[in-house]
């Protein structure tokens, strides 16, 4: 009887231990202040919006996709993604890029565009009126 509980607890502790370890390994912080993004050398998820006015550039030779992002404080940053243009990119109301800021631009390994979904009501931009 006693052994059963000891064995059970042992399994649980090992499981939780592995989970916590992997969690810390795969954990990425969100960062919506680009000055912070530029100053850290850790991988972060930078959230901001695509600077539509500056368009995007799809380099077909090097297969890179370049665009500019701006945070709420108006800090701009250049983002370069190795790969092709993400689907529905133009729809994006905001963009979350995962990667690091090195040598003057953000090296994104993943782009997540937040597009309106079925649970969302895309409001007309009222702020500029």
């Amino acid at each position, binding site marked *: 009887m006693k052994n059963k509980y000891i064995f059970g607890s042992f399994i649980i502790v090992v*499981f939780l231990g*592995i*989970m916590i370890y*992997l*969690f810390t*390994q*795969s*954990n*990425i*912080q*969100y960062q919506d202040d680009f000055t912070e993004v530029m100053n850290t050398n850790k991988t972060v*998820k930078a*959230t901001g919006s695509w600077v539509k006015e*500056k*368009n*995007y*550039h*799809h380099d*077909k030779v090097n*297969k890179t996709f*370049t665009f*500019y992002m701006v945070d709420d404080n108006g800090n*701009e940053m*250049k983002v370069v993604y190795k*790969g*092709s*243009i993400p*689907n*529905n*990119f*133009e*729809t994006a*109301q*905001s963009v*979350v890029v*995962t990667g690091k800021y090195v040598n003057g631009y953000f090296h994104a390994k993943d782009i*997540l*565009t*937040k*597009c*309106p*979904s*079925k*649970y*969302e*009501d*895309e*409001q*007309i*931009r*009222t702020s*500029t*009126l």
Partner: protein
Amino acid sequence: MVGTIFLVIALAFSVMALVMYYLSFKGYKNTLNYARISYHGMVMFIIAASTLLWYALLNHQYQYNYVFSYSNNSLDTGFLLASFWGGQEGSFMLWLLISAIIGVILQSYTSKRKELEPQVMAVFTLATTFLLVMVSPWFKNPFEFIWATPLFLDISSINPLYLELPFLQPFFFTDNSSGAGFIQMNSELHGLLAGSGISVNEFISDGRGLNPQLLNFWMQIHPPILFTGFSMATVPFAFALGALMKNDYKEWVRQAFPWLLAGMGILGLGIMLGGYWAYEMLGWGGYWAWDPVENSSLIPWIVGLAGIHTLLVQRKSQLKGGFGKFARTNLILCILTYVLVLYSTFLTRSGVLGDASVHSFVDPGNIVYFFLLLFTGTFLILGLGAIVYRWKWLTDNTQTEVGLLSRELALFTAAVVLLASGLIILVGTSAPIFGQSVETFFYNEMILPIAIIIGLLNGLSLMMKWRNTKTKDLLKKSLPSLGIAFLISVLIVVLGSIDEILIMLLVFSMLFSLVVNGEIAFKIIKGNKKMLGAYVAHIGIALFILGVIGSSVNSQQVDVDLIKNETVSAFGYEMTFTSWKPIDNNTKYSFNIDVKSGDSEYQVNPVMYVSDFNNSLMRIPAILTLPTQDFYITPLGYDEGKNSFVSQRESVVLEKGDRIDFNGMYIAFTKFHLNEGVMEAMQEGRDFQMGAILIIEKDGKVEEIELLRKQISGKVEFTSFASEELDIKIKLVKLTAVNVEIALSRMVNEIEGEIAQTQEILYISASIKPFISFVWIGVVVMVVGFFISVMRRLRDSLSK
């Protein structure tokens, strides 16, 4: 207005039913009939309100904010019906409607089975009450009028007949950046329109429409199925809490069993239909992205699965008298399944996932956030509170002894392992609440070993007897299956060139499960077919996971430029882009690609179009499904020369001293050039100009240029610089006090662009997904298995 009243009446009926059912449970004799009448009254009003909403959508009654926001005149009937659940309000409404109807079945079901109705229906009506409050006028009411909260309507959605109305002028607004015109709709304008005898419905001629990503066949099917699964999860919860209220733990098990099985079968189907939708339409390139929204509905499913395995043990052990083993575990799991459905709703609807999900959610406001929290919290506290309350009694009366090599323990272990995987996904999915996030490898690395254990455990447990098994017998019995599984695994590993040890183990584990289940299913198919359920479901899951391994481990992707009529090959497929044609009344473009694989020739048609809804380019992939793999083509862009979809311009922002590379040249911004008196001129509003000095350096030669920002009688102009020799064109785009922005392009590019007009290029991303069909086949087989089990358990629930 009528719709809102219907919903309020339904809410009153629901509360009434709740009270009456509770009183019946407390022993009052004459209240049961009132409870039933109230419940059915509630259902009628919910159906009436839903019908009204559908009627309003079909007839384009844009005076309702919901109808305006989620539908428009161009939708066909199918999508108009589906726009019912296009938004937050309507999806709560759908959940409510399905719950109400399921409650009718549940009422009839429980009334025919031993004194279960009062307490089970009391709990169930508590759930409908919460949902009714959600769609009531105080929260997310789909019948809210468009003028209730001020809203900007695009000019194009207004009936042009009325645009000249004089009193309309103060309500016009223009967006400075896009130049688009809007009319502000509010109660004041509504009053003015009503005063002139114009109905809002006439005034607004078109709605905003459904998001183009939702305009897919599966939009009409996936949400109702998912919500049926959600609604059905309420039932085992109601049975469990009812049992705790009555302190009787025998009967509920066999009565809740078919409901739990059916609910989880449907929820599983709903989740994977969502995955199929994503694969076919959204162009994620896959069916599962560990996205929090997908995960959040997967968690209750996994917990429900765990519950099915332990419920089986309790039911089996009941036959020997008493209420059976794992009584507490089952109560907890059935309660948690529904609480996690509610938690999933909280995660996806409250806005807490904000940045974390591909789907994005507008913050519905604090009041909805707290209401969802209250909804989830109430059911969690009620459920767990009742268990804590009965804990001592349950502990004293539960049988505990379980043999080490018994099927009981194996099933319990299966439940524990499933719960562990549920916990992993729960932790990862909840992380964004605390501003954290996990990369998908967190899920993959954690779930992989668990999936291996599940397959092996599944195979072994089916060879164990109830109560106890001799180790020798077990070994003897399992050797042939292990051997067969091993041989096939070796074959797959070699042929599929799998080099990761864990993946090899997973292949083996799934094949072992497949062989054991297949063998048993084969044996009993001639005899008692109703016993087949579990084996069929397990075969389905094993096939599914083998499909996941095949399609993800060996998936490859490459970007290809298809020049018209030139053949390019990738992964053994020869692709030729031959033509394009407009489809759907010239609103979309279908591209024709001839694909040749070996001797077979196919045609695929990816589609691109610019959606009016959000002014963006939508790309719909084309999938060539072959027996062993899918060839998946996502269009990226199309270049026809001048009017290309893809922009070539590159613009950069430079601060003083910045230097960039462009086409083998260095371009540096050295300084601003301000003449004397510029500041005064600026302040006095006279004409002035500011300059930015740039240096272009190529092969050691340096050229200094100046670009100007001129202000002439209030208008701003920018100059540009062009040089054929350097093959560069620089245009000043913006000049501020701290930096300049310039647009760079090559001269040759423009000339090339003219020539290239005849050279059309289609940019695509091509990938192969080996054995992905196993994923879909596996899901279908699994769901069939669930329903065979439902039939068996339904019969069991009726036995005396």
